[in-house]
């Protein structure tokens, strides 16, 4: 209890507190941050459409959106994982394995059964990751590196290393067809993205995901079941990877055991470009989708310009560096 001789000081403070403290002041900053990547995307689109008349054609747009769908679906799961300060390297293996399992079962069973089994593969691998990380206490990097290897091996054994063809035509039609310029697989991707962004920003589950990633000890002491939360996050990532694997199978009309190799790296890149932080507590599904679109546009555009695929992967690396550099730069400037 202080007796205030400097009363003007305290009255100033009171009036400060009385006015409703605003929640809006950083909206503009948020918008600026997400729009930085978005404007890079727009810039790329402008450059490519000037350089190649074909780039903006509806055929090509359709193609880009189709290309991005699989990586974007994976990025949705990866976003959750990265927000918890984790990483899921097993995504690529799950893409291959769930695609192969689905494709093999489609030969003799109904498509529904095959899809269910494919998705189950993702849930099993996700649960295994969750178990290794929360109960066996392995670091996420090691746990998912191990399941990446195991999953890849299982896919090779199931197929003897051979691709699986003879995908039922109804499934292939789904994978390649669409409504107008919207491929079905992109619609699936968009629906999942909306769903999981809503969960992330408006539900308790989403809030807990950020909390665990921001400070796991504080989260535990706040009464959160942090192990359970992490388990479900890896389950989601496994599930999304399986969805990605099935979409890819439909899209390319075959299933290769190695179909998903490097997809995990692309999804990580998409999340990081979209504002996710590997230190946890930051990231959005929207950002990651924009990140994935940027990558797909870059690869498509450079292809149209006749730049060799070897150079393309170099460009991809540069984009990741630039995105994270500008992100750090902005952070240093920011607060």
């Amino acid at each position, binding site marked *: 209890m202080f007796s205030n001789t400097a009363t003007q000081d305290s009255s100033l403070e009171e009036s400060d507190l009385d006015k409703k403290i*605003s929640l809006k002041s950083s909206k503009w900053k948020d918008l600026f941050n997400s729009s930085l990547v978005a404007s890079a995307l727009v810039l790329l689109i402008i450059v490519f459409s000037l350089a190649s008349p074909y780039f903006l054609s509806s055929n090509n747009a359709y193609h880009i959106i189709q290309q991005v769908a699989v990586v974007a679906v994976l990025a949705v799961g990866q976003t959750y994982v990265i927000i918890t300060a984790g990483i899921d390297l097993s995504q690529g293996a799950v893409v291959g394995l769930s695609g192969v399992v689905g494709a093999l079962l489609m030969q003799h069973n109904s498509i529904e059964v095959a899809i269910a089994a494919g998705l189950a593969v993702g849930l099993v691998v996700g649960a295994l990751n969750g178990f290794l990380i929360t109960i066996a206490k392995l670091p996420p990097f090691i746990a998912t590196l191990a399941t990446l290897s195991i999953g890849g091996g299982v896919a090779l054994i199931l197929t003897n290393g051979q691709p699986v063809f003879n995908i039922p035509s109804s499934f292939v039609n789904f994978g390649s067809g669409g409504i107008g310029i919207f491929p079905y697989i992109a619609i699936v991707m968009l629906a999942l993205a909306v769903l999981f962004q809503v969960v992330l920003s408006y539900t308790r589950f989403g809030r807990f995901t950020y909390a665990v990633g921001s400070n796991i000890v504080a989260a535990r002491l706040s009464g959160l079941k942090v192990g359970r939360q992490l388990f479900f996050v890896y389950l989601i990532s496994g599930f999304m990877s399986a969805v990605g694997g099935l979409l890819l199978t439909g899209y390319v009309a075959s299933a290769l055991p190695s179909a998903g190799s490097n997809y995990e790296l692309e999804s990580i890149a998409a999340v990081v470009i979209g504002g996710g932080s590997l230190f946890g507590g930051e990231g959005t599904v929207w950002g990651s989708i924009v990140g994935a679109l940027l990558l797909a546009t870059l690869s498509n555009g450079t292809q149209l310009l006749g730049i060799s695929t070897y150079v393309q992967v170099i460009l991809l690396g540069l984009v990741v560096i630039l995105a994270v550099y500008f992100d750090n730069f902005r952070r240093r400037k920011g607060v």
Partner: protein
Amino acid sequence: MLKLEDITKSFGATQALKGVTLEVDSGTIQAIAGENGSGKSTLMKVLAGVHQPDSGRVILDGKQVELSSPIIANQHGIATVFQELSLFPHLSGYANIMIGREKTKGPFLDKTAIRRKSDSIMAQAGFPKLNLSLPIGSLPTASQQLIEILKCLAKDPQVMILDEPTAAIRQEEVSQLFEIMLNLKSKGITILFISHHLEEVFEVADQVAVLRDGEQVLSEKIQNLDEAKIVNAMLGRRLDQFYPKRKKTSGNQVLLELRSACTDELDGVDLKIYQGEILGVGGVVGSGQSSLAELIAGVLPLKSGQMFLHNNPVRFRHVQDAIAKGVVYIPEDRRLEGFLPNLSIKTNLSLPIIAKKDCPFLTKVVKFIKRNKEENYAQEIVKRLRIKTSTLKAPVASLSGGTQQKVVVGKWIQMAGICLVLNDPTKGIDVGSKADLFESINELADLGMSIVFVSSHNPELLGMCDRIVVLSRGKIVSELQGEQATEEAIISAMALK
């Protein structure tokens, strides 16, 4: 002589230093006091070469110097022991002390020379014996602090900056540190010393400068000062009573009882906590006082013995169990255990209630968060604790230490149903925030809540608590109340075995 002339420094729109002038004689200890955010750390960083001033001059022994980087500041003989230990936990003491100035023989490290140099620095400064060949992560914090000082001495400084060197160490180690400081002073080294504990300032400093809002408001020889003068200068208002008076006395109904409670650190504790009392828990670090707090709050499980709540046996297996009963815990280290750094004030404040089963602002089934209700809830806490912020959306990492601690307390203040456990809640926070915090604690106790108040700072226990228990080696060795409760009594109890 070191002279800072009219130093200004701004960060964006905030002016951290508004023209500070400071003169320090060689071979003296200059204390710098001020609340968090008063600019003292910024001033020290200007001197350390971490920040460049917008205007003003630094004059060392009559010559103006340009401190454009920490390395250049080192070259001018200015070295800093930073608040956060900046050591390499996996490397040995020797490696840490000589980091960046290793002796070499051709391409190889000359380990013998490195050892010899470190040992001679240690002997000269009158340090106690330290084992410098171990990885320093395995040493106690106080030894690490000393190694940090050795590392600073290896740079052969004329001016040494100690930024809150006593924050992380125990009472008896503080006197050891002060001996070293006085010894360094007698060797002609100038020391700038930042501390939140004024009695420490009076113990070692020759003169004191006080900063407030980026301006120097007091600079005086220590003989001409008393504690009240310094505090008044820091606050810019008069401090009649730092510790608030209780309006009610504690009840005689037992809320919580421990019988022969044991954990790894506790060894058969019997304790009754009454309704509406503020129970102080004292003891040196590692005597079990932290474990006692964690046990009551369900963070640490009971190994043997019993715990009763309202005379019914109770067992907290997780912190959730304690929270459900209305027993909440404010942890010791706010950075590691308290807040979510990159999330907003609002999110931090509402997290515990959202984690509760029957949270009033969640929808059924899908558990959507009702944002208006959440915002109002956070708004209410911000007002109640006088958390200074312009927006609820500010990430907690961007706030000052005192404000961060208010957020950590604010998380729990509405959640505490019957008992609030505070584990050293005033570590590293400024006087104003402390006073606000004490007032909130008192209000809760007056409402009938039991408060368990663990503190390593004895005057605080004496000022705040109705009753004090002192632990030593996991046992309660003394219970003090009323007239018996004096600083001497606590200190002599702490030494009991």
